């Protein structure tokens, strides 16, 4: 009985009262709330498992003694499935914006061949997913994802490190990794070899919205 009365108070009391408890109880409170709401509306429980964005940010930086090369792209599409710990993201190569337009042209035409290979993709699985997902509602989680990264038509095993955070119903993702152009058959002529770093650092910043299953799981 005591349980039920508490239950009712939590659901019917002022919203502020419920949220005020969350920081104190941490992840447990959030989880409980999720379950309670989820039981009431089964659809919602599914919705919270999957997060998606089509406007994620990615940038890369190559530092060499000759020049620094930097580009940004805000058209990253990504899906996170928190039920299974699966991750996928796709980066349209043609949408990288450089400060120098000639660099951008060379990037597309000569190095990434974006006509032939329009996207870079990653599919992977969170390492230690159960543990991470359990802690996720309470705090930002440092994570690693293992999977395959496809760049310039070449697929390789890759480990991406980063953090996951649930914030205001959104999944905030930060990730970073390095790519060696040579690993992905990106040919750099001798003449400009000093201009392009052997290892290019890549940063990803995603804010994913929860999606309803009806949208996300269509065949």
């Amino acid at each position, binding site marked *: 009985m005591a349980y039920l009365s508490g239950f009712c108070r939590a659901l019917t009391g002022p919203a502020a009262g419920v949220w005020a408890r969350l920081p*104190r109880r941490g992840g447990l409170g959030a*989880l409980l709330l999720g*379950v309670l709401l989820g039981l009431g509306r089964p659809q919602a429980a599914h919705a919270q498992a*999957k997060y998606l964005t089509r406007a994620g940010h990615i940038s890369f930086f190559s530092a060499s003694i000759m020049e620094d090369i930097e580009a940004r792209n*805000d058209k990253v599409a990504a*899906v996170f499935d928190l*039920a299974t710990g699966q991750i996928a993201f796709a980066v349209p190569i043609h949408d990288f914006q450089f400060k120098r*337009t*000639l660099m951008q042209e060379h990037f597309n035409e000569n190095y990434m061949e974006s006509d032939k290979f329009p996207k870079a993709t990653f599919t992977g699985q969170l390492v230690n997913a159960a543990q991470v997902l359990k802690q996720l509602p309470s705090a930002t989680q440092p994570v690693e994802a293992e999977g395959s990264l496809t760049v310039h038509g070449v697929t390789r095993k890759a480990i991406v490190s980063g953090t996951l955070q649930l914030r205001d119903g959104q999944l905030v993702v930060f990730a970073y990794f390095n790519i060696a152009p040579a690993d992905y058959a990106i*040919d750099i002529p001798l003449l400009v070899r000093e201009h392009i770093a052997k290892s290019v650092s890549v940063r990803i910043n995603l804010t994913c919205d929860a999606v309803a299953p009806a949208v996300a799981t269509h065949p």
Partner: protein
Amino acid sequence: MIMKKLLTIFTRPALLALLLGAAAPAAHAQADLLGQLEQDTKKDAPSQVVDATFKATRLINGHTVQTPGEGTMVFLISHRFGALNSGAYEFFGLDQATLRLGFEYALTDRFEVGVGRSSLGKTFDGFLKYKAIQQTTGAHQVPVSVTLFTSAAVMTQRMSNGIDYTLGKRTAYTYQALIARKFSPDLSLQLMPTLVHRNLVINEGEKNDVFALGAGGRYKLTKRFSLNAEYYYLLPSYTADHYRNSVALGVDIETGGHIFQMHVTNSTGMIEQQFITQTTGNFFDGYLCFGFNVSRNFTVKQRARKI
């Protein structure tokens, strides 16, 4: 307080089981997350402008649809030597050379201005070039790029043929619509309907206006090397009867910020007024002039971040 107590009753494993249990039915549908993502993004694939139709702003003698990116300045050095069939005494044409030095600057990604000075006729030229239509793929397809080009050229050579040359009489104008399509990453073709207007013509019967239709293209053999061809056909006129169509064959070699263009052509001028209306050599008779354009790009102003 009651709430706090209650919460401690629920142990974490139990909660997790509940949560995962609720989500479990959805799990099987997530086998191909990436495929699903691609399908999702394909639905609203945005239109994409086709760029790099050509490597340089020049095909060989004439312009391409390309303009440099915003804030980029191009320094262009062009040379045409004498005719190959002038023999060993003239060192197969290398003893003679005409030169044009030019600067171009792109005010926006679609609009550039340029100035140049040719040794032939001691001619100054200035031009405006605007990408009016850009070839686009995706939802809103546009099959071709169209760039509008106009130039004015003033010949400043001192003349002693008894004709009174005022500034106006020394001036000529060119109007062009450059129409190009990048058929594949390697193949791009271009058509160039052209009008050249000379304020003064010397010959009896010659018209001030000359109409020509240019055609050309490039085929990329490697990522940084292409074969180029360019031909300007003079529409039937006095000029067509007394001058020759401009023919040019060449290659582009790209190295970082430089583009080297090497070619053979029957024209010794490097601006439209000269190579379209004043070409005299017969290409197929061996009147081949070796020539090159070297362009160097400088980023004067970095583009504001589009984020």
